[in-house]
């Protein structure tokens, strides 16, 4: 492929990682949602670009899914939910921003080291993509474990999924089954999460995970 294709793909993937860092940085729910929307948007772009350069039209579907569901529907939905449930707006973190950032750096470095061991018969783009995807996945996980309230964790989880999509699209010629399954799983994930948030609301007045933890096993 030509140089420019590679650079653009690289740029998009890299910015995805960057936005993951931005998410880590946020301390307000709304802001977090917005950044996540941006995250999804970038993903959509990168997927679309992949579709273009791989001339794999089916990838456009994935791009569309990313754009519609992740970048628009879900942030809005979560936004509404926050309003409805009247969740207090700032994100309770476990560790401070700075240390989280440092940890994130470490994770990205780790991802790079691991991927660089891969021999180069895989084409460089795929390799870069995987490196970035791995970073995004790890950052998403990091976000999940450093955020106290459910919305934060959900967002973390979703950015993790984004990393997966990035990897999947990076994998050239991967059968459609995978994209569909990704979308499919995320769909189910959201349905179930929705159900849960719903049920949870009707039972507790908060989605704060700690409220659930009060009923931890064996506390009878």
């Amino acid at each position: 492929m030509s140089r420019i294709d590679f650079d653009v793909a690289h740029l998009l993937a890299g910015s995805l990682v960057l936005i993951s860092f931005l998410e880590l940085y946020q301390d307000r729910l709304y802001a977090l949602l917005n950044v996540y929307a941006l995250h999804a948007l970038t993903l959509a772009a990168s997927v679309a670009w992949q579709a273009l350069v791989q001339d794999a039209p089916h990838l456009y579907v994935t791009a569309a899914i990313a754009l519609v569901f992740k970048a628009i529907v879900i942030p809005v939905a979560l936004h509404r939910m926050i309003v409805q449930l009247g969740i207090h707006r700032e994100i309770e973190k476990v560790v401070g921003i700075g240390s989280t950032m440092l940890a994130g750096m470490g994770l990205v470095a780790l991802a790079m080291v691991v991927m660089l061991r891969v021999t180069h018969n895989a084409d460089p783009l795929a390799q870069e993509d995987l490196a970035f995807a791995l970073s995004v996945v790890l950052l998403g996980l990091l976000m999940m474990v450093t955020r106290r309230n459910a919305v934060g964790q959900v967002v973390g989880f979703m950015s993790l999924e984004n990393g997966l999509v990035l990897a999947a699209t990076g994998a050239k010629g991967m059968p459609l089954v995978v994209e569909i399954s990704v979308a499919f799983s995320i769909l189910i994930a959201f349905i179930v999460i929705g159900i849960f948030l719903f049920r949870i609301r009707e039972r507790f007045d908060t989605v704060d995970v700690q409220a659930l933890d009060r009923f931890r096993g064996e506390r009878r």
Partner: protein
Amino acid sequence: MTLAVALASAAALLALAVFAVAIGRSAAATPIIYGASVFVTAISLVAAAAQLLGAAEPLGVTLPLGVPWIGAHFRLDALSAFFLVVVDFGALGASLFALGYGAHETAPQRVLPFYAAFLAGMTLVVLADDAFTFLLSWEFMSLTSWALVMSHHRVPENVRAGYVYLIMASFGTLALLLGFGLLAGPDGSYTFAAMRAAHPSATIGAFALILALIGAGSKAGVVPLHAWLPLAHPAAPSHVSALMSGVMTKIAVYAFVRIAFELAGAPSWWWSIVVLAVGGITAVMGVLYALMQHDLKRLLAYHTVENIGIIFIGLGLALAFQTYGMPFAAALSLTAALFHVFNHSLFKSLLFFGAGAVLTATGERDMEHLGGLIHRMPQTAFAFLIGCAAISALPPLNGFASEWLTFQAILLSPDLPSWGLKILVPAVGALLALSAALAAACFVKAYGVTFLGRPRSPAAAAATETDGFSLAAMLLLAAACLVAGVLPGLFIDALAPVDTALLGAHMPPQLGVPWLAIIPITASRSSYDGLLVFLFMLMSGGLAAFAIHRLASNRLRRAPAWDCGYPDASPATQYTAMSFAQPIRRVFGTMVFRAGETAEMPPPGDTRPARLAVEMHDLIWETLYAPLANVIGVAADRLNRLQFLTIRQFLSLVFSALVILLLVLAVWS
């Protein structure tokens, strides 16, 4: 043929167990099951005896059971035949006893099925000829006996006893499992035949021996692995206690002999030292513990520990002599050990039967509430007396015969080239002598406090003689004790094939000796004739009686006890079990049990009674088991916090696992 009979009887017992489950609750179940067990074990006994006395070639059979590509191997050679005799004789006595004793059982459906299965398990252990079948039967035996221990599960102590027992049993099984795994090698040749052929290296053999000592020792009750034994044996119904103490511990001895003398290859120089030391310590500790007890059945259980020690001393000697190529001395030691195995199974069963009879008659196991039973239950008292004399190694009974042989083996030690053994063996001999003397003291106490004196409780005063079956069983065993005592030669000759199979040599045949005496080595060296001693005592005693009744006055007057003229109304003024043991406790206890007495003497004029409190510590439990339990408990508490984490914390567990693995991958090359 004999093997087939033995296996068939095991199968019959298993079937009986299933049948017992079906009919367990009905009243007829008890006589049916025990009667059938008497029948089956009798048949099996005959078969085993035929195999042993006929010195027949080992028989083997492989059934398509167990580990599929190996199958279940069974083999009846001299050693297993001998132990099968022990098992079946004990089982025969126990079943006979239970025909009467079982009637008092409150929950027969909890006893009958496991009883039959227990017998089957023990039979199968001695027949098994590959590691899997062996361990299967072994653990099956433990499991069924565990169920029997739990049969009176409403008593919390019994539940605790069963718990400790099961853990120790599994511990032993796992130790044996490791040992067999070592002997079998990575490609898993589990048959004993393969292990015999393998000739393991010195290190493998050494580990196998240590593991066998731990595994078999924990079942046999070797100090310090004995902790479960005095808890579990008394908890079971008395005929089961008799089997566990008298027979099951011998199965453990069998396992050790099988591994140490046959499978583990040529012995190294230090094996015998380890075994001898363990045996000596076990013997003395066991009897000292026993002396401090006042629960009759627990006292007997601790004496099992002592006798196991004596047996292991014999085995250790055999190992020592075998190491230095003295097959005849080794044969003598092994014979002594195995003969003691047989004898102990006799008198320990007898004593437990007696305890059971007392228990049913009075509902008491605590000697402090007994006394004077010789008046109420004379036959039981007589049989029990024989048992006490036998276990105290008094001539002309069997206990003395086997201990005498052990002493003779010890006296061969100067021929050993190793200086360590030259020094160690006499010291062990001192321990043996000490334990024998203490055992006599202990049984003076046990018999005197339980059967003699005046009843210490209404229950004891109202006791009645036990039933016919129980008496028959006890007298049968008492007679056996006497026979084995006066005719030891027969048994020594019967053991010759075992020695030949394991050591390649056997003791000189004894049947040719005049007056049925036994001559272990040479006539000039030592000889003993139980029969003659017995006749002598009869004769001189009879002579004395005759003379007295001829010449002396036969007048006899009953009067209150003299007791130096002190009026002594209450039975409470008698010596109790604790007070009887007090001098010995002061001699040994202060060292072994950190025993201490605190006397509280009120000043004159004060009406409070004076009090004497005795404090003792089971140091082995306190230094070995309790800390272990604590560690487990603390660890459990610490880890248990992981149950109460938040989801986020669980996620971070996953996350850190991922990161760690990635790091591993990053550094892995």
